C-alpha cells in the first residue's frame, strides 16, 4: 500500500535526475510485480507446502536497490513474501515469480527450458515475450507498461485475471 501510494505520488511528477528516475522506475516495477502476483490465479501445486512463502526470485544483478524491501511486509494469497536473489540461473529454486533484470537476459536464456511450471516469468529486457517470457515491462510514452505472452503463460500453467489482460499494453 505504501508502495502504491509512493507510486501514485510520483506519477504526476516529471523525472529530472536519472538517479531519481531509476529509483522511481524500480519502485514502480516492484509494485507491479506484487500486482502481477495478485492478478494471477495461483494453483496449490505452485507451492511446495501450505505454509510456503510466496517467493519472488531476482536473477543476476539486483537493480531494485532496496525497492523490494518494502514488499516483504506484504502478503499474497495469505502467504508472506520472500525475495530471493540469484547471481546465476538456479533451477531448483522454488519461485512463484522469476524476475530477470535487463542484464539477466543470458541467465533467462539458459534457464528458460529448465524452469518448472507455474512460475511467472517477468523481465524488462526488450524481446523477452518473443523469447518465450510471460510478462515484459515496456516503456510507453515515459510510462511503464507491460506486455503479456498468453501462449507461453498458458503453456506454463499461468492463468491471469481478465482485468490484468485489459490493462496490458500488448498481448501475444
Amino acid at each position: 500500500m505504501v508502495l502504491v501510494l509512493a507510486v501514485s505520488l510520483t506519477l504526476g511528477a516529471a523525472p529530472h535526475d536519472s538517479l531519481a528516475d531509476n529509483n522511481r522506475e524500480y519502485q514502480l516495477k516492484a509494485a507491479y510485480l506484487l500486482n502481477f502476483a495478485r492478478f494471477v490465479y495461483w494453483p496449490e501445486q505452485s507451492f511446495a507446502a501450505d505454509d510456503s512463502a510466496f517467493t519472488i526470485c531476482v536473477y543476476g544483478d539486483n537493480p531494485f536497490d532496496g525497492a523490494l524491501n518494502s514488499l516483504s511486509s506484504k502478503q499474497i494469497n495469505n502467504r508472506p513474501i520472500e525475495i530471493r536473489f540469484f547471481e546465476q540461473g538456479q533451477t531448483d529454486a522454488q519461485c512463484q515469480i522469476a524476475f530477470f533484470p535487463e542484464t539477466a537476459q543470458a541467465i533467462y536464456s539458459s534457464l528458460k527450458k529448465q524452469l518448472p511450471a507455474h512460475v511467472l516469468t517477468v523481465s524488462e529486457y526488450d524481446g523477452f515475450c518473443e523469447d518465450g517470457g510471460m510478462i515484459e515491462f515496456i516503456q510507453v510514452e515515459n510510462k511503464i507498461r507491460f506486455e503479456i505472452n498468453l501462449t507461453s503463460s498458458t503453456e506454463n500453467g499461468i492463468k491471469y485475471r481478465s482485468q490484468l489482460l485489459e490493462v496490458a499494453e500488448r498481448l501475444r
Partner: protein
Amino acid sequence: MKLFRHISIKTKLLMVYITITGLILTSAFIIIMRMEASTNRQNVVSGLSVVGEIVADRSAASVAFSDVESANSNLRTLRSHESIVYACIRTEANESFAQYTIDSSTQYSCDDFDIENTTRFDGNYVDIYKPILLEGQPIGMLQVKASLDELNKRLLDSAKLSFMIFTGLMLIAAFLSRKLMNLVTQPITRLKDIAQSVTEKRNYDLRVEQVSSDEVGVLVNSFNKMLDQIAARDRALNNEKEKAEISALSAKRHASETEKMNAELEKEISERLRVEKELQELNETLEEKVQERTLELKQLNEKIGDIARSAGMAEVASGVLHNVGNVLNSVNVSASVMREQVRKSKAENLGRLVNLMQKNQHDLADFISNDEKGKQIPKFIALLAEQLTEERNTLFRELDELANNIDHIKNIISMQQSYAGSYGVREKVKLSDLVEDALKINLQEVNRHNIKVERHYDETPLIYADKHKLLQIIINLISNAKYALKEKADNNRLLQIMIYKNDGEAVIEIRDTGIGIAQDDIQHLFEYGFKRRRGGHGFGLHHSALVANEVGGRIKVYSEGPGKGATFQLFVPLDEKVAAA
C-alpha cells in the same frame, strides 16, 4: 356546518359516502405511491450498485497499474445506462484518476476518497460509492452519479395511472352509493312529500304507505298515527267552532234581549226611586210608631222583671217550703211513733193492778203473801217498771228528734226571713256564706239522693251586692245540678262548688257529674220557656241569667255532652262601681 342545513338528506349522505371513499382512496393512493417510490428507488439503487461493483472490480487492475486509459474505457461502459450521468475514480491518495460524463456540457465534481460503500441521494441525483479492492484492500474509489429523472418520470406515470384508477373507483362508488341510498332516502322523501302536502292542503286524511319495518317504518307508522289524532282533533275543533258560532249567535240575541231588559230595568229603577221616596215618608211615621212600641216594650219588660222577681222569690220560697215539708215529714213520723207508743203503753196494766189491790185492801199483806194472784204482784210491778222505763226512753228519743226537726224548720224559716226582707237592697256579702246558705236550703234533697259535695273556696273579698238576688241564682244552679245528678243512673253523684277570683271577677263554679247537656240544648238553655226536665217551669235559668245581668254579672255553661256532666259559672264583679251599676 351551517352550510349543510339546507341540503337534502340524500345529498348529505352522498357527501358522507364520497368523503369517506375519497379519504380511503386518497390514503391508499398516498401509501401505494410512497411504497412504489421507495421500491423503485431501491431497485434503481441496487441496479446501479451492481453496475458500480462490476466497474469497480474491473477498474482494480487499471488503478493498480495506473492505467488511466483502461480506467476511462472501463467507465465508458456505463454509457449503456442512460440514467448514469457521471462516474469517476479516485485513488487511495485522493487523486482524481479517471472520469466519465454522459454530457460534457454539465460539470460534475468527483467526491473525495471514501472507502465507505454508500449511497447518497442529492436532489434529483443519486451517488453510489464503491471501493476498488485489490486482494481485499481498497486501492481506489468509484463514484457513480445517476439522474433520478427516469425514476421520477416512471413514478409520475404510475401516479397518473393510479390516480385515474382511483378516480374511476370514486365515480363507481358515488354512482353505487346514489343508487343504494335511494333505499334509505326514498321512504323519507315520500314521508316528507306527504307531510308537506298535509301542511299545505290541510288534508289530514292522507296516509304514508309503510314499506319497511326499520326506523323509517316506525317513523311512518307514528306519523300516520299522529295524522289520525290530528284528524280527530280537527273534526272536534270544527264541531267546537260550529258550536261557538251558534253560541255567538245566541249571545247576539241575548245582547239584544239584555238591551231590552236594561230599558225595563231603568224603568223599574225610576219606579223604585219613587217607592223609596214614599218609603222615606213612611219611615218617618214609622219611627214615631217604633218609639211608641219601645215605650210599650219597656213597660212590658218591667212587668216581666217583676214577674221574674216574684218567680225568683217563689223559687226561694218553694225551696224553703220543700225543705220545711221534708222536715215536717220527719216531725210527722216522730209524732206517729210517739202516738203508737203511747197507744200501746203498759200504763193500763198499772190500773188493773191498782184495782186488784183496792179489792184486797183489808188484808193486803195476806193477799200478797198467800193469795195465788197476790203472790204475782211484786213480780208484775217489777216487770211493769221495766217496761215503762223503756217506753219513756223511746219517747224521749222521739221527742229529741222532734225538737231537732222543729229547730231545723225554725232555722230555715229564719234564714228565709233574713233574705226575704232584703230584696233590692245591696249590702256586703261573703260569697261562701251565700253558697253555704243555698246548700243548706237544698241539704235535705242532697242527702236523700246520696250526693257527695266537695267545696273549694278561695279567699275572696266581700262584695257589695244584692244578696237575695245572688242567692236566688245560686239556689237555682245548685237545684239544677241536684236534678241532673238525681236523674243519673249510677251512684257516682258528685257536686263540686268552687269560689275563686278571676280577672276582677269572683267566680262561683258549680260542677256536677250529672246527665249533662246536649250541644243543641246549650244554645237554648237561657231562653225563656226552655224546659229540660219534667215539672220544670222553663224560666229558672232564664231568670237567673236576667238576675245575673242585673247584678252586673253573667252566667256561663259548659258541657261535653249528654252523660258527661255540666259546669255552670256565675261571674260577679268585684269592682264596686260595676257592682253598683
